[in-house]
């Protein structure tokens, strides 16, 4: 049954006129959205997807301007409307949900004020009616006890709750369309699953169309019916989700879908990576924007801009090359031995580390804990104790990778800081190559530091902006007094080649590098002292999908070639699965499940692990449709005030009386895994 169209965007151009030049953020976007349909716009940062969404509402701020095009909502062209008419549409016919719920609500106004203002702007309800409606809406979006909650200020609510409030606001005037701009990016996986489910149900219940903007191909597969892929300000491919995922036509989509590690099946040796970086949007467009990074680009691709052409009645792509040519790339996921030999040269001083005793773990953690005291003040004598990490046990074999997963506040970063001895543990021991380093001091601590190094989450803030890349890479050598100045320079050159950059970068400053390049430098610095363990704390979370694969591959290769052991901390399950041999799942300062990757992903035992895996979206619409997503109720409790018994008992769907009273210990199972749950045996 063909539905009526709701929104028709035609050849939309939005440019930002900056001092450095004109950024063509949206450069000729056309698409159609039917009534009640869920369309996802997917793209990396800088692809223009958010600018496009804001153009629909005409909320482009200076120095941006909508240059040309038309946006038809029903029979009205939004771009021809007066500001007054637009204000009727905004919030009235189109509701919006933004990315960061922490900053999207006015901090000095109560939820009630904000909702009531919006409701009264678009309806004829009086104040009391509006409050009544607001409470109804809050109930509808699943906020418990809305009568009390409505009087709260935003800071009194959790991130997930605030996002629900924003959704309530978007719903408040029964809009025909809701624009959701990365609505779950700032949220934890289990909360993300709740919000996505809520949006999906609301769309089904109210018949409201949704425009879902995201960078996450997994979420698209779970949520949308149709998808448009944006690259460099243009839609490069458009179609139904099933068709597009099953048979991608544009080389960008094709490669993007393969850069994501698979959550099912055995682990691939290497991820397909898209080399290079997105184009500079200030340059005028000649030819296909993806041509520079496209392995199959033809001369024609560099001179003429391809337009969207039909590949099937419900599938369009903007590429000069008919499909089939890309069957070549598709196979590349598993590189051959020769390909591996073409990897960047290895620095001479970096030797493959042979474990002295293969059976001895390189790292062993025993009942590790970190307790913080909140500051006591004049009037409150004793501060509260926050148990950020509360007794961890795990071990890591030489040359292996341990994945540490968990949501925010689970203590994974605190654990990393203790492993590196940036913080001293409150309790327990950290045994590195047979030596307990938990409380080392002075010279002994210095010797330990050569063995364990770190790759930071945000590489930029981990570099002193006043130093050149060479000074940054050689700093560990200089401080440790390794070699002469000349030798250190030589090492810097070798290291930068090892991480796949060229020597000219040594004289640059951090702000002259892109995110992916910076993370490579971060890895080079971590390697400078030839450590046996590298701790990587969310090393890819600040990077785009296409660049992420480059960094993950680099880490995997180095581990392979140098025999380094890696502790890999991440909230991204697909990446953890790809890179880790063993996995430790953390929840509120405790490990709930620990064991071989295959075992845990193949058959999760702890209810939290199950929920986590089920919440993580898979970029496969077929699988997503078949899956039954297990939603966890409620929010993460605060580590300052954890539940009495099993820490997961407040959210566990299977919790029994005993779970709320006693705390389960990690118990070894038959298949070399450990689980901390009374209900598993």
């Amino acid at each position: 049954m063909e539905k009526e169209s709701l929104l028709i965007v035609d050849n939309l151009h939005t440019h930002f006129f900056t001092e450095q030049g004109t950024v063509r953020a949206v450069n000729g976007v056309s698409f159609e959205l039917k009534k009640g349909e869920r369309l996802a716009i997917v793209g990396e940062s800088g692809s223009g997807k958010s600018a496009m969404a804001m153009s629909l509402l005409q909320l482009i701020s200076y120095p941006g301007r909508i240059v040309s095009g038309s946006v038809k909502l029903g029979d009205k062209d939004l771009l021809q409307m007066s500001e007054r008419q637009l204000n009727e549409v905004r919030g009235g016919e189109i509701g919006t949900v933004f990315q960061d719920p922490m900053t999207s609500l006015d901090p000095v106004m109560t939820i009630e004020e904000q909702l009531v203002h919006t409701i009264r702007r678009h309806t004829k309800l009086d104040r009391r009616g509006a409050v009544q409606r607001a409470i109804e809406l809050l109930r509808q979006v699943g906020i418990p006890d809305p009568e009390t909650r409505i009087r709260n200020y935003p800071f009194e609510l959790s991130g997930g709750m605030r996002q629900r409030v924003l959704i309530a606001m978007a719903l408040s005037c029964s809009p025909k369309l809701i624009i959701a701009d990365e609505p779950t990016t700032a949220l934890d996986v289990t909360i993300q699953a709740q919000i996505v489910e809520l949006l999906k149900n609301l769309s089904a219940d109210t018949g409201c169309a949704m425009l879902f903007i995201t960078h996450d191909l997994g979420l698209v597969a779970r949520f949308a019916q149709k998808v448009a892929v944006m690259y460099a300000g243009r839609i490069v491919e458009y179609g139904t989700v099933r068709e597009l995922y099953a048979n991608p036509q544009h080389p960008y989509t094709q490669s993007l879908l393969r850069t994501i590690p698979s959550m099912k099946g055995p682990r691939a040796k290497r991820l397909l990576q898209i080399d290079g970086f997105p184009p500079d949007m200030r340059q005028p467009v000649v030819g296909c924007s993806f041509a520079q990074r496209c392995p199959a680009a033809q001369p024609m691709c560099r001179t003429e801009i391809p337009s969207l052409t039909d590949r099937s009645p419900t599938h369009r792509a903007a590429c000069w090359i008919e499909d089939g040519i890309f069957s070549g790339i598709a196979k590349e996921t598993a590189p051959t031995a020769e390909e591996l030999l073409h990897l960047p040269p290895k620095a001479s001083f970096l030797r493959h580390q042979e474990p002295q005793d293969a059976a001895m773990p390189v790292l062993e953690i025993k009942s590790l804990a970190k307790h913080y005291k909140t500051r006591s003040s004049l009037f409150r004598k004793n501060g509260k104790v926050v148990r950020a990490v509360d007794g961890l046990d795990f071990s890591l074999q030489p040359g292996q990778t341990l994945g540490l997963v968990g949501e925010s506040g689970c203590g994974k970063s605190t654990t990393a800081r203790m492993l590196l001895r940036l913080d001293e543990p409150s309790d327990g021991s950290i045994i590195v190559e047979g030596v307990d380093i938990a409380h080392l001091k002075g010279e002994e601590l210095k010797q330990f530091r050569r063995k364990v190094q770190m790759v930071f989450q945000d590489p930029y803030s981990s570099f002193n902006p006043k130093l050149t890349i060479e000074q940054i890479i050689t700093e560990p050598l200089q401080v440790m007094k390794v070699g002469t100045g000349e030798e250190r320079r030589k090492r810097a050159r070798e290291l930068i080649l090892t991480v796949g950059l060229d020597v000219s970068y040594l004289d640059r400053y951090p702000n002259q590098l892109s995110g992916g390049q910076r993370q490579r430098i971060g890895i080079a610095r971590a390697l400078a002292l030839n450590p046996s363990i590298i701790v990587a704390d969310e090393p890819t979370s600040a990077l785009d999908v296409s660049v992420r694969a480059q960094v993950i591959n680099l880490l995997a290769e180095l581990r392979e070639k140098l025999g380094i052991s890696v502790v890999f901390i991440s909230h991204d399950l697909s990446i953890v699965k790809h890179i880790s041999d063993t996995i430790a799942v953390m929840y509120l300062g405790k490990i709930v499940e620990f064991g071989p990757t295959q075992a845990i992903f193949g058959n999760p035992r702890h209810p939290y692990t199950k929920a986590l895996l089920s919440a993580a979206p898979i970029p496969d619409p077929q699988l997503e449709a078949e899956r039954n997503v297990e939603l966890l109720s409620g929010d993460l409790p605060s580590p300052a005030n954890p539940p009495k018994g099993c820490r997961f008992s407040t959210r566990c769907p299977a919790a029994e009386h005993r779970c709320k009273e006693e705390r389960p210990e990690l118990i070894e199972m038959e298949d070399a895994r450990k689980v901390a749950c009374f209900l598993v045996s």
Partner: protein
Amino acid sequence: MADYLLKKAAQLIPTILGVVTLVFFAIRLIPGDSTSYMAGDNLSGEAVDALRERMGLDVPVWQQYLDYLLGILKFDFGTTMVSGLPIGQLIMEALPVTFMIAFLTVLIACLIAVTLGTIAAFSAHKGKKLIDQVLTWIAMLVDLMPSFWMALLMMLVFTLSLGWLPASGPIDFSDPVGLLQRIALPLIVLSLGQIATIARITRTSVLEVLNEDYIRTARAFGTPQLLVVFRHALKNAAMPIITVAGLGFGNLLNGTVITEFIFSIPGIGTLLIGGINSRDYSLVQSVILVYSFLFILVNMMTDLIYKYFDPRVKF
């Protein structure tokens, strides 16, 4: 709330004690004591001793210090050395004048500065750079003008050339119109000095708030731009503005000394300059203490207002 006030006051005690002590001992740093100046060469040894006794300088330093502390608690600063008048009373007579001028200045300056700052921020946000730049430049120029020079220019124009406003004469609270005319020039000079700072912080913080996500939310739900500025932007920008206005109060007090001196207004600034010129150190010490207390008090008040406006702070 009361708990918070108590806590705040407790925090301030060491600082206030430090201020009082610093002033007490700083004055003792002066070579010789006040009497040697007052006495000159004309008084005999016994006469000087008598004078010292009258001024309480004949007892050990620690006892002088205690007397002085007790005196402050009772707002008793002793008597002036030259005329023998009680200092507390002199200050109480001069303080209302200074206070009135300072209060009116803050009122005028905030009204004008917040308006101008908001206009500048809004223009900058909309990309109307010219309005913003002109306002920013004017703010900078006014800010950097030496206040005494500005006062003289005003006097030259409005008093000497145009004859519109008086620059001297008695301060009479019973004649509001005359009073307003009399203090008009000092008010203009002082306000101009304050406007620049407050306008600048208003511009910065309003501009910052206008770029916040919740402003975009409000706009995305159809709130007209002007309403956004009044309902959301100003309310959120209020906190830094209040803080800066509070800190600027120190500069305002600096300014009152100079304008009182130029326009011969009998406030505590004039009292201070007179004290220094007649080397009446107990008067100088007391007036400086009063200035410092005023400043501490205002800072504490801005802190309270700040806390009151921010729902995230619990008392």
